[in-house]
């Protein structure tokens, strides 16, 4: 057995390295660091169909992530999907005639909300609402329409 004070130092180093490891996992590996600077405001948009959008999906403008989806709920009166988004406070100049649309990153990637700023001088405040929205493109629907249309075309050609 080693001298006790060396042993104490080694145990201390061991525990410290464990704490460093956990910190590394928390800050460098996981999304914990993105919670820390979370100084944000909430805006709401109503979509006819929000598709595969999930809470924590990114919200971006011009391709840059500026916030994330906080919650998605169904409005039983208007039959619309109500999407609440948290936008980082540093981006506080979003015009109130902004268009929100649900896009897909790549062909099979995850879905996100894209904000296309309008030209208004009035900016969205906390609890603001986006009036102009564009629903998610449902792949099945699009394929269905395409097939239907091509069938129609070929029927017309035969006439």
């Amino acid at each position, binding site marked *: 057995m080693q001298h006790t004070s060396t*042993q104490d130092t080694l145990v201390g180093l061991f525990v410290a390295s464990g704490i460093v490891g956990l910190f590394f996992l928390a800050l460098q590996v996981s999304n914990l660091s993105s919670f820390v600077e979370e100084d944000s405001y909430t805006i709401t948009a109503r979509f006819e169909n929000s598709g595969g959008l999930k809470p924590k999906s990114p919200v971006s403008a011009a391709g840059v992530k500026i916030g994330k989806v906080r919650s998605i709920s169904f409005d039983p009166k208007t039959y619309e999907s109500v999407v609440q988004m948290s936008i980082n406070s540093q981006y506080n100049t979003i015009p109130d005639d902004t268009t929100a649309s649900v896009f897909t990153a790549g062909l099979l990637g995850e879905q996100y909300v894209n904000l296309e700023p309008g030209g208004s001088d009035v900016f969205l405040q906390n609890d603001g609402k986006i009036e102009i929205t564009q629903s998610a493109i449902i792949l099945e629907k699009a394929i269905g329409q395409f097939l239907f249309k091509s069938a129609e075309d070929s029927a017309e050609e035969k006439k």
Partner: protein
Amino acid sequence: MIQLLQNLGATTRTSFTKLGRGTYFLLQTISGILSVLARPRLLLNQMYSVGVLSFLIITISGLFVGMVLGLQGYYTLSDFGAEETLGVMVAASLVRELGPVVSALLFAGRAGSALTAEIGLMKATEQLSGMEMMAVDPVKRIITPRFLAGLISMPILAALFSAVGIIGGQIIGSGLLGVDEGAYWSQMQANIDFQDDIINGVIKSFVFGFIASWIALFEGYDAIPTSEGVSRATTRTVVNSAFSILGLDFILTALMFGDD
């Protein structure tokens, strides 16, 4: 035929008796925690032999596991043109599964077997009964410090394993194979959730530390006090720990990650 049934009954009975003794032993061990906390020197000594001495094997294995994950992940992912998600793959598999499980298996092999042999030999050389003669409770004096040390060391070792493994994956992935380093980390950060992945991984390693230390100490305490008995107990420690860790891992994974 009757003989067969008799044997079956006897085996069942002895295994249940053993489980009962094990549970009693565990309760005894836990009841000694307060008296150990009053004498932290005992705990510190055990932290050294259980934790610090396992440090090297855990970190080196972690590094190599991470490097292998980086290589294999890259070959598979590059077929789909998705090399950038290598970080997610390495980190998720390490933090959720490989970190807790492999470090617990190594822990059972490195520290658990040593504990069993140590306690078994103490029993064989009648040190434990000697303590009882001196009115020192051997469970409180010998077992509980080792149990606590295992319980504390295991999450630390698992966290180290994952952290070193992720760095190893990065060394291979972006250092050797040319995955973009920024993408490696940012994809990882975007997809690994602190609560769902990391906290659950820590809970897992805690459970594994509990079960591995319990089995190791009980097998030693329950060993037949001969050299053959101790060697058998050591074997049983490694086998039973491995079974329990892998079985529990399945249950814990089903409970924790069932939703998504």
